[in-house]
């Protein structure tokens, strides 16, 4: 080989990379996507602070701290690379902080975020391996462990007198005798109502959602299927009995529907990977929400619906495997 080299002109060779094709790569990375999600959630956080007071900022901070510290501790303990900077634990903590009632106990929210990361994420292997949405695992734990604290709602700070501390859903569902009480739709839109810290303002949520969908971080199929599902299933019952059941459009703006649809059902890890699967997943969530809200013992079912469908995701992925190009169905 040395002879061939002499016949060839020398080329100045810099350090060359020899990785396999493709040699181009989109500009996305896990880290970048996660931090943009964090940004997209900020409007909801701001609305929560506006409506319920500065204390909510502390709640959210404690929640994030719980999540991040837990992840750090577990990674440290397992001698793995510390992955805090990828932002996923921050999202989990942030989201959990926003789906607890306003003025929630700091100790409990910390416990919830520890559970989110430890039991919701790390026992399954950490980022990318969890079956269930970690933030919702934390919330479900809190709901089951401290049901009273989790259903004690504070009024928004400058609520008109007509609005009681009860959330629109329970105001409608658990009436003291009289007529079902429906909240005005524009209150639902701006968020001047009772509810979890970050879920009340549809405006703020949609603002953040717009960023996620424009940048194609969140897949539009899941929320779209959820909305369609709600319009269909919720619509059927509303038409059957408009006196008792709210319109599906109001239902979309009530409770955690929008927040769940945009920030939580879209979680990459715990939602299906196939397009068809995403439609099934979204429709399933909507159906379960309608069942629980209209017929169940609980006022709200977004969390349960998403968690249940998370459980179905492996099966959905399996049975919605796309037909390979050119293969006969």
């Amino acid at each position: 080989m040395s002879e061939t080299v002499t016949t060839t002109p020398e080329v100045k060779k810099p350090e060359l990379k020899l990785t396999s094709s493709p040699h181009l790569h989109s500009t996305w990375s896990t880290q970048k996507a996660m931090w943009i999600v964090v940004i997209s959630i900020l409007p909801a956080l701001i609305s929560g602070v506006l409506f319920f007071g500065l204390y909510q900022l502390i709640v959210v901070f404690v929640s994030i701290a719980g999540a991040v510290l837990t992840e750090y501790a577990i990674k440290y303990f397992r001698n793995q690379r510390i992955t805090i900077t990828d932002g996923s634990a921050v999202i989990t903590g942030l989201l959990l902080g926003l789906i607890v009632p306003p003025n929630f106990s700091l100790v409990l929210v910390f416990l919830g975020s520890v559970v989110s990361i430890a039991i919701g994420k790390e026992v399954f292997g950490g980022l990318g391996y969890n079956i269930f949405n970690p933030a919702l695992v934390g919330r479900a734990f809190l709901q089951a462990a401290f049901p009273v604290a989790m259903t004690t709602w504070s009024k928004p700070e400058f609520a008109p007198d007509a609005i009681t501390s009860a959330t629109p859903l329970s105001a409608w569902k658990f009436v003291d005798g009289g007529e079902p009480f429906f909240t005005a739709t524009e209150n639902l839109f701006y968020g001047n109502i009772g509810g979890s810290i970050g879920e009340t303002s549809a405006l703020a949520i949609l603002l953040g959602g717009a960023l996620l969908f424009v940048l194609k971080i969140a897949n539009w199929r899941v929320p779209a299927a959820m909305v369609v599902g709600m319009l269909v299933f919720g619509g059927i019952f509303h038409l059957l009995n408009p006196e008792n059941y709210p319109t599906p459009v109001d239902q979309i703006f009530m409770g955690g529907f929008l927040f769940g649809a945009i920030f939580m059902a879209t979680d990459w890890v715990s939602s299906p990977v196939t397009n068809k699967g995403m439609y099934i997943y979204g429709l399933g969530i909507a159906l379960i929400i309608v069942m629980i809200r209209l017929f169940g013992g609980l006022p709200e079912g977004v969390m349960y619906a998403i968690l249940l469908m998370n459980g179905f995701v492996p099966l959905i992925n399996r049975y919605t495997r796309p037909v390979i190009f050119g293969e006969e169905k």
Partner: protein
Amino acid sequence: MNNVTKMLVVLLVIGVVSGGLLAYISDWATPIIKENARLETERAVLEVHPGSTKQIKIDNAGFELYQVMNEKGDITGYAMPNEGTGFQGKVKIMMGMTPNLDEITGLKVLDQVETPGLGAEIVKDYFTGRFKAISTQPEIKSVKGKKPENPNEIEAITGATISSVAVVKIMNDGIKKVKDYLSTQEKKEGAK
């Protein structure tokens, strides 16, 4: 052939021994179990009628109903067990009423499968205590998130409205049953 007979014989012997043993034990235990149940009911009946000491089961009511008396033999009211559906399943209660059924003398929850910490709070004294001396006119009502204003109102448990309301409903149903029974009884007596 031989084998089959052996199989049958062995099984038969085991079965007979087992059956005999169980019959024996069951004979011994059945009265005790019955007595336990009776004692429990009795205790519950007296518990919802503080101060009373005696009770008589009314046999012709078509449902379980007890008449309760004090030391001196004065009738202090009635007690009845009743059941209905709560949040998760059956709720069974014992309630005591004044002789004219206007007021509740006491309440005890005998059986329930509600959520611990939430619905299951209905067994706690702080909740059952709320029913003491509550008026049944026109019927008991539960209110939520505020202090009761009228004599027939009790406050529901926060976060367990469904269970609270269920208890109230079971009571109202029961009172109605007793009322009907007593009025037909009066009519009969009047007829006599």
